[in-house]
């Protein structure tokens, strides 16, 4: 079977009813969650516009950024979309990925359960998971990456049926390379796909590796040439510096090595090293418990129970046990990643656990299908009624487990943040630079003024008084430290000019003026 034929066969299988479900999901996600522009996403838009050579807001920053810091697929797409359709278009990638995710997940459920037509059930189940709608409206490549991951695996399960096929395996390899160009951890998926295909298809499985290398080798060459040494990641310095996190306070350290695509001297120093062994205080068991706690506290309890039932049933069935092996291969690298110190995120605990969440959803629907049959027979009700009953329980359970991140103050998505951005746009001239931390930088970007990162406590003196921007934005995510930082020593007067507050936090605009303090 040729690639073209293979792709055509996939295309023809997209039922029109599924398109309606995808459209329904797009609308439902946008109604369930508020769009969230995170600092990385906004920076990716600008890096993408720099890469494309189209006008970026902070175009002068193109020279100071590391253009290859972010894998290029999302920045290029987001840069292009927002250029032509406005800032709202940045969400189209995430929301469409989230909506389309229903299809590969449904195919996997159908494979495991042996039942057809589960797309509607899967759609409602996904909407019961608060993190699904949260990440579906988060402006960053995570959801696109998750969609690609499950799409790849559903293809893999499908290709198993074409014993004589050759090219589809290469195509899967190429797509797994593209997955790596969406999110750096995509590199973990390819070895799992190769291992699975070697197990299931024998030596032909190596074709996936060939396809992957067709994309990965040029990318690695580009990264190595750019870094001046052999490397497979633009973020190897993070691994090299991980051990510093065990004994240095995070905030000044992160300010020192910079956040996002900014080019800092400490990154050069760390880039020259190999990955260091992290000597953190927590054990692997503690880390695993913490990850499990993050997962269970963010997912509806009824879904977890259904997933346990679904998992038990799928293990009992011998004919499609290989699909569960595939599910394990999806989950393992992400669980391992989430257990590392650099893989954990207190503010967004499911950042690296999203594939695990959707594997839980898959088994949840498998469990739901079985329980629905059981309920239907016991209560003598229709299939629709039993499905609706169980889905209602799952959905209500989901309302009681909001994703913790949606309860936090995000300056860029708060009323205060927009008012501050509007105020800056109206009250300071176009060329004036505004300093802030990376976390508060979206306010500056939205205000369409050039942004400068605040230095660390340790290198504050490098910020010459003459070079300091006149304006400073501090918000509740920073706390008061930027103002009491040693870099604003004697002789620098900081005047509050505007303040915006709401129920969750505040944003303060300050102006630095020359002269002595009052």
């Amino acid at each position: 079977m040729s690639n073209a034929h293979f792709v055509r066969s996939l295309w023809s299988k997209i039922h029109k009813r599924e398109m309606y479900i995808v459209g329904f999901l797009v609308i439902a996600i946008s109604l369930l969650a508020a769009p969230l522009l995170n600092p990385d996403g906004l920076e990716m838009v600008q890096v993408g516009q720099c890469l494309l050579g189209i006008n970026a807001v902070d175009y002068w920053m193109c020279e100071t950024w590391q253009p290859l810091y972010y894998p290029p697929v999302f920045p290029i797409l987001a840069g292009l979309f927002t250029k032509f359709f406005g800032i709202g278009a940045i969400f189209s990638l995430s929301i469409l990925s989230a909506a389309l995710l229903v299809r590969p997940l449904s195919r996997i459920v159908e494979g495991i359960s042996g039942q057809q037509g589960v797309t509607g059930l899967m759609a409602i189940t996904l909407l019961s998971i608060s993190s699904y709608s949260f990440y579906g409206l988060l402006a960053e490549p995570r959801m696109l990456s998750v969609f690609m991951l499950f799409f790849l695996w559903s293809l893999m399960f499908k290709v198993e049926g074409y014993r004589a096929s050759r090219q589809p395996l290469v195509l899967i390899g190429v797509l797994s390379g593209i997955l790596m160009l969406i999110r750096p951890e995509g590199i973990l998926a390819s070895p799992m796909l190769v291992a699975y295909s070697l197990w299931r298809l024998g030596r032909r499985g190596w074709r996936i590796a060939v396809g992957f290398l067709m994309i990965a080798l040029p990318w690695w060459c580009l990264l190595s040439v750019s870094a001046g040494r052999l490397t497979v990641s633009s973020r190897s310095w993070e691994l090299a510096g991980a051990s510093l996190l065990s004994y240095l306070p995070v905030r000044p350290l992160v300010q020192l090595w910079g956040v996002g695509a900014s080019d800092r001297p400490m990154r050069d120093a760390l880039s020259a090293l190999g990955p260091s062994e992290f000597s953190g205080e927590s054990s692997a068991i503690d880390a695993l418990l913490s990850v499990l706690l993050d997962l269970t506290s963010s997912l509806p309890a009824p879904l977890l129970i259904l997933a346990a039932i679904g998992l038990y049933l799928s293990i009992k069935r011998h004919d499609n046990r290989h699909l569960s092996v595939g599910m394990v291969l999806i989950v393992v690298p992400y669980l391992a990643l989430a257990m590392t110190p650099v893989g954990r995120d207190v503010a967004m605990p499911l950042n690296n656990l999203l594939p695990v969440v959707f594997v839980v959803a898959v088994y949840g629907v498998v469990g739901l299908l079985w329980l629905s049959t059981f309920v239907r027979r016991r209560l003598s009700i229709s299939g629709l009624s039993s499905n609706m009953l169980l889905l209602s329980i799952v959905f209500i359970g989901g309302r009681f487990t909001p994703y913790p991140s949606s309860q936090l103050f995000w300056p860029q998505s708060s009323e205060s943040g927009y008012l501050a951005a509007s105020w800056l746009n109206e009250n300071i001239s176009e060329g004036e630079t505004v300093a802030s931390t990376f976390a508060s930088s979206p306010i500056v970007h939205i205000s369409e003024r050039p942004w400068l990162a605040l230095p660390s406590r340790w290198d504050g003196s490098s910020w010459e008084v003459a070079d300091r921007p006149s304006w400073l934005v501090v918000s509740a995510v920073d706390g008061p430290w930027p103002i009491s930082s040693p870099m604003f020593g004697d002789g620098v007067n900081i005047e509050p000019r505007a303040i915006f507050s709401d129920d969750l936090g505040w944003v303060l605009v300050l102006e630095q003026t020359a002269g002595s303090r009052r």
Partner: protein
Amino acid sequence: MSEAKNRTRTSWVFLSIALIFVISRASSAFELRAGVPSAVGTELPANLQEATEVWLKHGDAETLAESNLHMLPGLAAAWLRGLDLSRVDSEALAEVAISSMSQTLVRELQSSLDYTRPELGVLLNRPVMERAQEQCPGAMSSSLHRVCDDDWLLASKRDILAELYELIETEVEFAAEIRLGDSDLGLEASNALCRVLVGDFTMYEDTLSKVMSYELGSRQHSLGIMAISCAYPELSSPYLLDLVTSENSGNSMVIAAFELARTSSYDASSRSKVRAAISAAFEWADPQQSAALSVADQIVGGW
């Protein structure tokens, strides 16, 4: 067949409309607004500068409470920087001082110690305490009257220090991220320790021995070093130089080098000594430590 095609087209049109709806909805949420007053969500007049001036001149606890702005840590920190202490009522000043700090830390201290917010503001900020004590005669009825009792003051300072050391020693959530505001208790306790100790040279030896009691290379030791170097930049310099040049100090050499780099970059006379110490440390530093030391060296040399 054509009917099936039409249905498929209809489903695509539906999906496109859904996407257009979402994009336009998201875009409208990010539109900049015109004519935003400078003090939204607060009771302060639009002219924030004028209001700040008014408060500074007539500042007292009552007007502060009315404005409600002192509860915003960022603004309180900015105000505290510009305050003319001689013109401000000590109770209002104490409230601004406590508002300018990490509120997570303040809540933690209040849950363990029996102090009011203004009392904590005085205890955690030496200039504010001096101002409050200047106003002691005739202030016995104010909520800060306990500050006028030297025995209470001494005991309270001991309690506060013990509590801050305990917070520094508490195992922190390693993944506490920069985006969580002021909730990194260890770091905030270290900052508060600096504020309590600064200017009080009688406490240096005790503080040094406390810091030295922490395990070398531990996060607690790093936080202690940051506090002592912040409160006593000159006095602590020999200890920090010793850490950098000692083969046995392990990872503590890194934080000592960073702190020395910070203080020496403001003091040209000590730069050569610090650079020599860092150069010596390269001999036994492992690769990660060397990378950090090279950055510290660049900071001292002015990048």
